[in-house]
Structures are given as C-alpha cells and as structure tokens.
C-alpha cells in the first residue's frame, strides 16, 4: 500500500533531491489555486496539501513519474504559472504530487522564416514574447496573466488573450506539441501548416487541463508586430445592447480589430471611473500593418455610425490608450492581493466567463443580473456586479461577469456563501439558453458539476477520452470530470 512516506522514498529514487520540494509552505500553496485565494491567504484551506512538488527536467522524466503514479494510484496535478482560477490546481486527494514545469524552461527555436516558435512547457509567455518583440514579432497571445503564465499551462487550459479578435485563441496558434500520457507514452504532434489526417488530435491535448496528459513542449505561430500603428477608439453608450450590436456589425462585416469590448456601467466604473459618466463603454483597438489598420478603422467608424442613436459621446482615444497600457496583472498584483486579503476582509473580486451567439448574449446578461438581484440572498453585500464582452467571433461573443462583495462571513465559508452561488446562477442561466458556461477559464473543479450538461450527448466523447488515456484516473482528480468523492469540497 502506497503512503506518503513510501511515495517520497520512491520519488527520491527517481529524481535528485533538488527536483523534489517538500517545503510545508510551498505544499500549502500548492493545495489550492486562485479559486480559494481568500481562504488560502487566511490559512483556512480545507483541502489536503500534496505530498511533494516535483520539477522534471525532460519529457522522459515526466514519463517515468507518470508511469510510477499510474501504477500506484498517486494523483498528479500538472502545474505551470499557477494562475488558475477555477480550482484546476486544487488538490482533492491525500496521495498527490504536483508536477511543475519550472525546469522545462528552454526556448528551443524561433523560426522567423516559417513564422513559428518552439518552446518547452515551462517557458513564461512574457519571456517568449519579449524575445519575439526584439525581433519585431509577437505570439499575438496576451491574456491578463501574461507576465506570470507559462506556455504549457496556457495550452492545457485553452487560454485566450486580449487580442483574440484578431489573433484567435491559443487553439488557433498552436501548430504542434509534445505530451506525455499516464502510461508513459510520449506523443509528438508534428508542426505542419495544415493537414487532413483524421481528426485534429492537437485538440485532445489543448484544453485537457491536465486530466489526460502532461504537455511538455509546444510550437506556436508568430505574427509581425506593428505597435506604432495601434489606433484606439472609445465611446459611451446608452446600453449594453447597443455595444453588442456594434461589435456584431464590425465582426460580420469581416473586420478584425485586436480589441473589441463593451462594458456594462458597473464594470466600466472599475476601469474608467474618470470618464464613464455612468454609461456603458465601448472600445476598440486596431492593430497590424497600415492598410489593415486603416481598413479596420473605417469598419469601426462605419459600424459606430450605423448605431449613432445609441451612442452618447465619443471618448478621447488617449484615455483608451492609457487604459491599454495598464492592462496586465503581474506577480506583484497577485502578491499584493494576498497581503490585502490577510489585512482586510476583502479581495479584488471574482469573474465567470461564458459565451453564446449574438442574439443570446444580451438575454443571458439580463437574466443573470436580474436573477442575482432578486434571488441571491446576499445581494445586499454585493459591491459590484456587471460584465463586459471582450472576445467576439463571427457568430457570437463572450460575456465576462465581474462581481465583488463585502465578505461578511468567515474566510472558510466565503466560496459557498458568495462566489459559488453567484457562479451557479451565471452557469445555469447560460446553459438554459444554450450558451457555454466556460469561455476561457476552463472547467477546473468547481464547474465540473455541470460538465455533462455543458456537453450533452457529446459528453460521451469526452468520457471515452478519459477512460482511454487515463483509465486509473490519476490525472488531476476532480478537474473537468465530476467526482462523487470531491463533492464534500464543493458544498
């Protein structure tokens, strides 16, 4: 029978001491992610800490670790930059190791002619991006977590960036990758421009959230970078519907601004309190080569012109540019929030992101807001409830619900009193109208209760993947796939 002591002994047999971390503080930190950030900061986590964090140096080491864990029923949590928000990194098993990509930190090749870059899973996106910018390129990927997140994690969680409307989500950027399965098999998906060789197997790894395989290497596309051409637009709107109509107009006419967003009044206050005048805010950024930027600008102006009745005024583009320059949060922001959570009964809030087609998004938005205002028993504690649409597609867009509240309960109860009931309302209202409950944060462990509903009859396919690749269920127990044993942490 495997126990903690045995497990450590075995790990020490496989890896040198400096690749195994058993520091209690680090293990506590590894027990949960940003979902339970407040309980974690207040040191009242209810989940077990993992036994160790290991740092393999190669795909082969990952393979040996997985084979061992698979044979001995040891739960494995794959980990990158630790910016997960939905419990994807939370631990629900006593016998768990975290496989951290820290040492898989090499940029293997930047291939300018073929416009692709190959990196190991643990390379921070910022590092790759900085390297590319020096040469006049960009990955086009810029999630808010860019300064912290790592490539392996971004791919594993189907991440999306702030410029997705032009460049797409990570699934549009990944050319090929290498990943390791629980039985130790290492698969390499080759880098080609396109192929019709059966189903696109990249999508088994992209977004698997560490439940099927461990990603060790990825190759992403490159884009030319023209920051000097950036153009900004901002408008104050009478309502959020107008904003969504304008976003749609721009998209269906074939334009691809890199940023296209509309904020509800409440959310606008968070970012634009100095000019929003209690109105919704619509903003765009056009990016790319000169002719593309000019065309995009024309498209934006044209669309705005068509809906001028719903626009109360245009905003100085300098204000939008300034906002754009302060977009990302860094490790310092995260650390600062933790300090704040220790000192005060508050944090920076929570978010839930969903998606649906154009006609459904405004309905979901209003249903959610009304239901929370009327049904949620702690609605009076809310200090903020609103949302924005920030990623648009030809057939629809997303809605990023944002909320915060005065935390009037003990830290260990915060999730079940506040965030979870709120998220439940958002997910339920989205699923009823046929939207997706998870536009880009992944399912993690706290939306797994709706995974079957999210996928409906297609859940069959997802489930088969799990039984095929991870028959012993050692990969990130509780993530994506609902588990009876985990419900005690959810309620």
């Amino acid at each position: 029978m495997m126990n903690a002591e045995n497990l450590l002994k075995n790990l020490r047999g496989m890896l040198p001491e400096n690749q195994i971390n058993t520091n209690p503080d680090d293990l506590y930190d590894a027990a949960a992610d940003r979902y339970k950030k407040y309980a974690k900061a207040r040191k009242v986590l209810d989940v077990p800490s993992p036994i160790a964090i290991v740092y393999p140096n190669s795909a082969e080491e990952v393979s040996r670790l997985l084979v061992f864990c698979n044979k001995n029923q040891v739960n494995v949590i794959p980990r990158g930059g630790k910016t997960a928000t939905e419990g994807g990194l939370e631990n629900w098993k006593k016998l768990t190791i975290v496989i951290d990509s820290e040492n898989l930190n090499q940029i293997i090749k930047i291939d300018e002619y073929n416009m692709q870059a190959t990196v190991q899973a643990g390379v921070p996106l910022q590092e790759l991006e900085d390297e590319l910018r020096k040469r006049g390129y960009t990955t086009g990927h810029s999630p808010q977590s860019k300064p912290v997140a790592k490539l392996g994690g971004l791919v594993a969680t189907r991440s999306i960036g702030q410029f997705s409307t032009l460049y797409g989500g990570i699934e549009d950027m990944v050319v090929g990758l290498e990943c390791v399965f629980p039985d130790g098999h290492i698969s390499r998906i080759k880098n080609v421009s396109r192929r019709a060789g059966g189903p696109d197997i990249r999508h088994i790894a992209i977004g698997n959230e560490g439940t099927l395989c461990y990603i060790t290497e990825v190759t992403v596309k490159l884009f030319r970078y023209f920051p000097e051409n950036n153009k900004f637009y901002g408008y104050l709107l009478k309502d959020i519907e107008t904003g969504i109509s304008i976003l749609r107009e721009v998209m269906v006419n074939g334009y691809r601004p890199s940023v296209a967003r509309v904020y509800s009044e409440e959310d606008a206050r968070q970012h634009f309190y100095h000019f929003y005048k209690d109105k919704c805010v619509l903003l765009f950024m056009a990016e790319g080569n000169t002719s593309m930027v000019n065309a995009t600008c024309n498209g934006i102006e044209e669309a705005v012109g068509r809906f001028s009745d719903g626009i109360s005024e245009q905003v100085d583009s300098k204000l939008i540019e300034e906002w754009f320059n302060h977009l990302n949060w860094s490790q310092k922001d995260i650390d600062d929030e933790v300090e704040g959570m220790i000192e005060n009964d508050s944090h920076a809030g929570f978010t839930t992101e969903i998606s649906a087609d154009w006609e459904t998004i405004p309905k979901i938005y209003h249903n959610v807001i009304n239901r929370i205002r009327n049904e949620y028993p702690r609605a009076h504690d809310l200090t903020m409830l609103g949302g924005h649409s920030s990623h648009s597609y030809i057939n629809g867009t997303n809605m990023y619900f944002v909320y915060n509240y005065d935390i009037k309960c003990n830290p260990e109860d915060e999730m079940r009193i506040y965030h979870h009931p709120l998220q439940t309302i958002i997910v339920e209202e989205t699923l009823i109208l046929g939207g997706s409950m998870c536009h880009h944060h992944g399912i993690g462990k706290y939306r797994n209760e709706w995974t079957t509903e999210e996928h409906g009859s297609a859940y069959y396919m997802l489930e088969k993947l799990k039984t095929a690749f991870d028959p012993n269920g050692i990969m990130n127990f509780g993530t994506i796939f609902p588990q009876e044993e985990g419900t005690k942490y959810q309620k």
Partner: protein
Amino acid sequence: MKKSLIYIEQNHFQNSMDLLEVVRQVYDAEEYETYGVSFGASCDEAEGLFDYLIEVPDQRIRSYDVINMTNVLEELQGFYHFDSILFPATQLGRMLAPRTAMRLHVGLVADVTAIRHKNGFVEMVRPAFSGKIMAGIVNRNRVPLMMSVRQNVFSYQGASQKQTEKIKYSPIRIEDRKIELIEVREKEKTRDIRESEILISGGGGTGRYFPKLKHLADELNAQVSASRKTVDSGTAPRSMQVGQSGKTVSTKLYMALGISGSLQHMEGLKNVENIVSVNTNRDAPICSRSDIVVEGDAEEFIERLTDKIKWEKQSRE
C-alpha cells in the same frame, strides 16, 4: 427676567464661554441673567462675562464624578429655578447633560449647532445621520430648557464688563464615589495613517524623492502615505499603503502627489473629504475626483508649498 445656567468645563474653557452666545440667541430681546457653574478649581477668567459664578469647592466631588455633579445641579435648580441649562458637548458634558435632564424630568437636545425662533418656540437645530440631515427640535414647555452645544460652532463676542457675583456653593447631598481616575495619558502622535486628519501621499513618480514628502507633512501636522506602486518598489512600507488591498482612510485632506488613481487606490479614499492632486498629466483619473489639480512636478510642488506655509507662518508671528 430669565435665568440661564452654563456648565463651565475647565478643560474646555473657551467652548464653555461660547455658550453665552447661545444664551444670547435664545433670549434675543428678553432680559436675562447668566450663571456659570464650575467644579473643582475656581475660574477667575470667566469673571466679567457672567452675572453669577457658582463655584463648588468641595474636595469630595471630582470633576469626572457625574453622579455627584448631577446631585449638585439638581440642588442648584431647586434654589435658583433656571429657565435654561446649557452644556458644552464635550465627553463630560454629553454624559452630565442627559443625567441631569432625566433627574429634572425635562427634555434635552444634543449637539446644538444653531438656534432659531419659530412660532414663539425656541427651535434647536442639530445634525443627525452623520450630519447628512439637520433636524430642528423644540422643547415641550417644560422648564428648564436643556441642551448640549456642539463645540467650536458658536463664538461669544461680548465684552467682559459685568459685575460678576461669586457664589461658593456647599452641596447638601454627596454620595460615595463609584468611579476613580487611575491615570491620564496624552494621546501619542499616531503612526497609523488611518487616524491622521491629513495625508501627504506619494505615488510611483515620487520614488526618487519620497523622503521629501515628510517636509510638507510636518508643516501640515500630517502623515505620509503611499500608493501601491511606491510600496511595490520598496520605497515605502506596506503599512503606509492606501487602497483596496491597503488601508481605507478617512482623512479631511488627501494630497495625492504623482498618483494616477486606479480604482483600487480610490477604494481606499471613499471617506476622504478633500483631495488635492499634483500630477504632470492633468487627465490622470484621480484628477476627476480632486478639488484642486496642480499640473506639474510634485517635487517642485512640495518645495513651493512648504516654503509658502513657512513664510505665512513667519509673517503672522
């Protein structure tokens, strides 16, 4: 002839004298005479301002022993039949007034800030709901009229030319004291920025010369605080940080030097009354919430304003 008694609190002498102005406004054109009562040490400074000064030199009554002070006021009311009794709304006055009012079975109005006359009644105006609402209150025909008066609102300008008659009063009923003062200590100058009335706050741009903020703070008897950027860079300690993840302050004046004012920062300023911001960018978010925006370099501003305050201080001396 109306008779009014004012409770003179030694530690708040000027505030007690200012109640003469309230009495003046209450009686308007009517004739009245004023009595002052003080416990403990005699108050010669009040001579000439009152018609009568009652001193209670009994060693057994400490000037914090509200029960025995109430006994004395009750006895005095029995002798003199005052038409009104006024208290400065100090810590002590606000405890003594309600006890006395209850003893005399009369109504009481607290923290009066204005006197008005309405249909032959004296209307006492006082703030309610943290000063967000003002209420006019009248007394229902019972004598004496009693009120406590907000400090530093009224100011008595009358000359000190009365022939004050001094009365030494010996109390009849004194109870055993149920309270004993152990020690008094002066409040230390607090290090907690939440307790400061004025904050001089430095943002990311002030890192290079952050210690200079103290010069201006000293002139204004203020404390120095900081934005997150300043704390992140290690220039200021976290205990100085204002904002959502730092401290929420409720100062009367917040001087924001080189702070752009993210919403997270502004969350910490929810209860601040006045904001002066100094910024090279007049469109910085915080400027939209400021009473005065100084467009320019904060380091220069500190020197100029410090010099100006010093100069004004000297020229007044």
